[in-house]
Every structure is written in structure tokens, then in C-alpha cells.
């Protein structure tokens, strides 16, 4: 039986309406441009509802969602335990002059959960915490320079953008130094060339950049980096915003066998409720205490209640084990579906955050065609970003995804008789 092919008439109409009053229609990573919706007609642009691992678009099409709102959906949309905690807290208080004691409860839970954490500082988005980490490192060391890994993404504040980005001035990034991922010797050299000037080294736990195959840390890499940072008085910051909790509930630094000085969390923290956290070592507590850094909603109690419920449930179900097993099952099935149809699908990164790239042409156009065919058949994936596993994904969903992938590969092959 042939599969239903989704159309997106209402999405397109609503986008035209949105474009009149919203810059670029939909801005940022959830918009069609930055989200690399190629061609845009293949993609739903607005949702009408979500449940578990699914969402439904405004045209009524149902999707198995492997983007999970770009990470926050870790337990499943509308998780009953998280939502119950939210509803209960809403009846009590949320954004109040004197914050709720939920902040203490949450901080204690973070310190108990995250291996390298002696304290926890809360904000709203991942970028709030990476900025807090950089400011803390500079305050603690009285140094200016920051080392980044090429291909990085640590948010959208000017310090972590690039010199050629609109709205960024050279002075914003003039203290940024760049090294290649996994190249310890290069890092060591740059540190030596800037002796006494480096405030921090910031990196994700593994290279999960866009447009490229993701790369895990080389054997012993993080341990050597840890020692170098300690020896040279450099603050080691792990940006665990994307990976956090999906690899290891004690933090991705724990997963790879080292301890960060500062570690940033956001996406999987509260199953879609708006809160982020920076955790750190005791020796940096005084420095972050001195920062002038806050926000109107940073101490709201409802997201704290959501996060507490989310973390407790992630522990209860052993989320990292679940993500590893389901991610591996899915990735093996996708690779087999590609091979069955004469394609070479490369899967890289951790299975919980798998990254896909079809290797049959170097322009990525074939890859984009395949992903478009997958999306049109009701499985939401993106072209050039890693995907996410969530706890509501069932074996039946995975089986259906692999069937969709097979059908999409067949469609691509049919459209390209020149491939033989």
C-alpha cells in the first residue's frame, strides 16, 4: 500500500500571514530558512497540537518528531508527571517578588544529580548560561581570551557569534581564539602562545556541529584538556545544553570521564518548560556571586517544579539507557534501509542525538531530497542538524520510521534514474 504524502497548504498560507508581522515570517532555527527546510513545500511550518513523540501540523498531518522541539521534548510532549507538577505549582505561585523555595529544592537536586556541580544558577535559555559561564570565567581569572572549537554553537549573544554575522562588530569577537576539535596539540600550542591570557576553553562534550558528520572525543582527549586547563588556570566550560541528560544524568563530562569547572544545561532540563542551569565548582561560586546578571523570569517557580519532576522521572526510567537503546535501534534500521536501496547513509554522533548524512553526492542535494521525502511521509527530520530521541518513542514508532525511510529512498531512486 502506498504511503500518504503530506501537503502543507495551510502552513504556506499562515506563513504568508506571519511574514507581514513577524521578521522573516519565522526567525531562528525553527524557521524554514535557518531550519534548512528544502524544499520548503515539503515541511510543516506550524503545529496545532502535540502529544508524546508526535505533533500534528495545521494541515492535520501527524508526524513522529525526531527534532523534539530541537531538544526540550525529552519525556514526550505533555508528559503527565511534569504537567501535574506544573499545574500544582501554578495554583500556589510562580513569578513573585520573593522567590519560591522551589529554587532551593531544584538547586539541591541539580547538585545531587550533576557529578561536577557544587552549586546551580538558573536562567531561561541555554545562551543565558553560556554567557554566565564566560563572564564567570573572566571574573575569576581577570583574563580576556576564550578558546572555542571550530564549528561551535554556544548561543546567539554577540561574544559567541562570528565576525561576519550581521549585527556583530569585530570588537565583540576580538578575544576569541579557535582550535580544531580533538586536536590537543593545537590547543596546547595556542595556550602557550597566549600564556596567562586565556580565561576559558568552551566546548560541547563532542563535536555535534551542523553540516558535518559529528565526531566523538578521541581516547584521552578530555583528560588531557582537563589537565592542561588545571595547569594553566583556565576555566573548563562544557556546553551541555544540547546533550545534557540524554547521555548521562550526571552530566556529559561524567559520561566522558572528566569534570568540567562549569557546565551549562537547558534543553532536556524541564521537558519544554523554560529554564536553564549553570552548574559549577566551588572555587567559582564567589565569582559568579559577584556578577550583575539576572532576568525578570529567572526565578519563576513553575519551570522549577517542571524541572524537578522531569529530572526525577529521567532518573526513574534511566533515560540515557533508553536513548542509547532506541537511538541505536533506529540508526541501525535507517542504515539498513539505505543499503537496501543502494544508498550509503552515514550516522554519526551519539545514538541519542544521531546525525544523518547521505554520502552518495557531495552537494547534499540527494540527502535533502531524501529527508524531504521522509518528512512528506510523516516523519519529521531535518537536513543538517542532529536529531533527538525522547522517552515516548516506541518500538512501533521506530519500525514505522524505518518503513518510511525505505519508501523515501525508493522515491529518490525513482526520481534519479541516472543513479542506476
Amino acid at each position, binding site marked *: 500500500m502506498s504511503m500518504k504524502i503530506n501537503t502543507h497548504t495551510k502552513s*504556506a498560507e499562515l*506563513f*504568508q500571514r506571519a*511574514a507581514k508581522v513577524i*521578521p*522573516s*515570517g*519565522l*526567525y531562528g532555527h525553527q*524557521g*524554514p*530558512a*535557518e531550519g*534548512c527546510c*528544502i*524544499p*520548503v*513545500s515539503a515541511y510543516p*511550518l506550524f503545529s496545532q497540537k502535540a502529544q508524546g513523540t508526535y505533533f500534528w501540523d495545521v494541515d492535520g498531518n501527524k508526524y513522529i518528531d525526531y527534532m523534539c522541539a530541537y531538544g526540550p521534548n525529552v519525556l514526550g510532549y505533555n508528559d503527565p508527571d511534569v504537567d501535574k507538577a506544573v499545574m500544582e505549582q501554578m495554583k500556589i505561585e510562580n513569578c513573585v517578588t520573593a522567590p519560591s523555595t522551589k529554587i532551593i529544592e531544584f538547586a539541591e537536586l541539580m547538585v545531587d544529580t550533576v557529578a561536577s556541580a557544587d552549586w546551580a544558577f538558573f536562567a531561561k535559555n541555554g545562551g543565558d548560561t553560556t554567557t554566565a559561564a564566560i563572564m564567570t570565567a573572566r571574573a575569576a581569572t581577570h583574563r580576556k581570551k576564550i578558546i572555542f572549537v571550530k564549528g561551535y554553537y554556544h548561543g546567539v549573544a554577540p561574544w559567541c557569534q*562570528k*565576525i*561576519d*554575522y*550581521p549585527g556583530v562588530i*569585530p570588537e565583540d569577537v576580538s578575544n576569541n581564539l579557535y582550535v580544531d576539535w580533538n586536536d590537543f596539540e593545537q590547543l596546547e600550542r595556542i595556550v602557550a602562545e597566549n600564556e596567562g591570557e586565556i580565561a576559558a576553553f568552551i566546548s560541547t562534550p563532542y563535536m555535534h556541529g*551542523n*553540516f558535518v558528520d559529528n565526531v566523538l572525543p578521541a581516547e584521552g582527549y578530555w583528560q588531557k584538556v582537563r589537565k592542561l586547563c588545571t595547569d594553566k588556570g583556565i576555566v573548563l566550560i562544557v556546553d551541555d545544553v544540547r546533550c545534557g541528560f540524554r547521555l548521562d544524568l550526571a552530566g556529559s563530562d561524567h559520561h566522558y570521564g572528566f569534570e568540567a569547572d562549569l557546565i551549562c544545561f537547558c534543553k532536556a532540563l524541564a521537558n519544554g518548560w523554560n529554564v536553564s542551569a549553570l552548574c559549577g565548582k566551588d572555587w567559582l561560586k564567589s565569582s559568579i556571586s559577584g556578577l550583575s546578571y539576572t532576568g525578570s523570569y529567572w526565578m519563576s517557580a513553575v519551570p522549577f517544579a517542571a524541572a524537578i519532576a522531569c529530572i526525577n522521572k529521567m532518573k526513574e526510567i534511566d533515560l540515557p539507557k533508553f536513548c542509547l537503546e532506541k537511538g541505536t535501534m533506529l540508526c541501525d534500521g535507517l542504515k539498513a534501509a539505505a543499503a537496501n536501496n543502494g544508498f550509503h547513509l552515514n550516522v554519526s554522533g551519539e545514538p541519542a542525538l544521531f546525525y544523518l548524512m547521505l554520502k552518495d553526492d*557531495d*552537494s*547534499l*542535494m540527494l540527502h*535533502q531530497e531524501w529527508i524531504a521525502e521522509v518528512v512528506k511521509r510523516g516523519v519529521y527530520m531535518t*537536513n*543538517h542538524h542532529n536529531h533527538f530521541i525522547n522517552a515516548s518513542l516506541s518500538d512501533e514508532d521506530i519500525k514505522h520510521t524505518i518503513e518510511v525511510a525505505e519508501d523515501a529512498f525508493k522515491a529518490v531512486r525513482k526520481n534519479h534514474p541516472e543513479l542506476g
Partner: protein
Amino acid sequence: MIDQRTLAYINLYGVLGTLENLCELAPEAKSILTNKKPISIGFEVKDGPSATITFKNGKCRMEQGCAKCDVKLPFSSCEKFNGLIDGTVTPIPSKGFLHIGFLLKDFTKLTDLLNKYMRPEPADLEDEDFFRISTTLMMYTISVAIAQIGNNDEIGKFSAQQMVDGEIAFSIKDGPAATVRVKNHRLLAIKKPSENPRAVMEFANIRLARDLFDGNVNAIACIGTGDIVMKGMISMLDNLNRILDRVALYLA
């Protein structure tokens, strides 16, 4: 901030280089060159670009360098050459005084005509043929400016450093097309369609392209509406767009 050396490269290869296309597309240019003897004009900019523009059989062709030219115009700096383009500097030939008539009359007529198409009056754009020629010339100039900014401007070079090798097809559907070829982070603009692009940026129609070039519509919104098609190695286009953002600064 504008870098005068980058601007000189854009002015020579991008702006004066568009004379090639003007002579091909604009009937007025053809009539200026009718029954004229072949002549070549060399531009030599100290610490900057050099090129020779040859007019022959009603056609125009630009080549790099000016070892062989009938008239040679030397400029002591990029700023001086840029002054020629904005009309504040009068060039003095170091060679070819006998051909000064072509320089003062015909060449000036051609550059005035180019200016008419490149900086048009709103009323002129109401004529469909004028609109098409003007937008086509603008597209070629922008293509070359992209390459020059990627090769010379400090921030543009940063963008080019992030680009992988391959060709970017830069085109208007059913209209003109150009190619930006990337090799070892150096860019080359070719005023022809790409046969084997690694990335594609195509505007839905010439009206939309014009609005984009004039800054009247937003490219990101146009991707969402499908008026701009992007596919292939998106990281190349992402960096191309960052350079494109600087084109407006130089060609303003």
C-alpha cells in the same frame, strides 16, 4: 567599514567589468561602438587591481593585467582609482595620448550609460526592457563584487575561509545566471550558469531579484515563501549571504 583596496577591486572588475555585458545587452552601447576602431584601455592601480578593457567589433572584453593596451591609465593608489569611479578624479594617461578622443568621448558615454542602468531613475525602470537590462547588469556586478569581497575584505575573507570548494549557482529563474567558484577559499565569479553546482541559490523571478538587490524585501522571508530556492551545500550559501550583506555596503 569600507576597505578602499577591496572597493578598487569591485570598481574595476565588478563595475567597469560590467561594460562587457552592457555592450552585449544595451542597444545604445552598440550604437556608440559602431564603426569604431579596436582599442584597449589599461587600468593599473598601485597596490591594487589591474585590467585591460578591449573594445572590438562592437563588443567589450575585460582581461586581467595591462601589459598590452593602447591607452594606459595609472593610479597612484586605490583611493585615486575609486575617485575616478565616483567622479572626483580625472585620469591622466601614461600611454596612448593619440587615443584620448575615445577616452574622453566614447568611453565616457559608455560609463555614463552604465551609470544610467546601474543607478536608474524610477521612471526608467517602468520600461520593461530597461528594467530587465538594468537588473541583469546589477546581478553580474553583484556576482563579481561577492568574489572580490571574499578575496580582499577582511571580514569577507573570514566568510570565504568557511566555504568548501565547489561552484555556487547564483541565478534568476528564466533569467540571467552566474557562478561563484570556490577553490581553496578564493572566489571567482563567472558570468555564466554553473553546469555542476554544489549549491544553488535561485530567485523565483526578475522582479523579486530586483527587490532583493534594492533591499526592499528580506531574503530569509523569501526562502520561507519559496520565492528563493536554496539547496545543496547550505554552508556555502550561508557564507555567501554574509558576503552578500557586505556587497550593499560597497555598492551603496
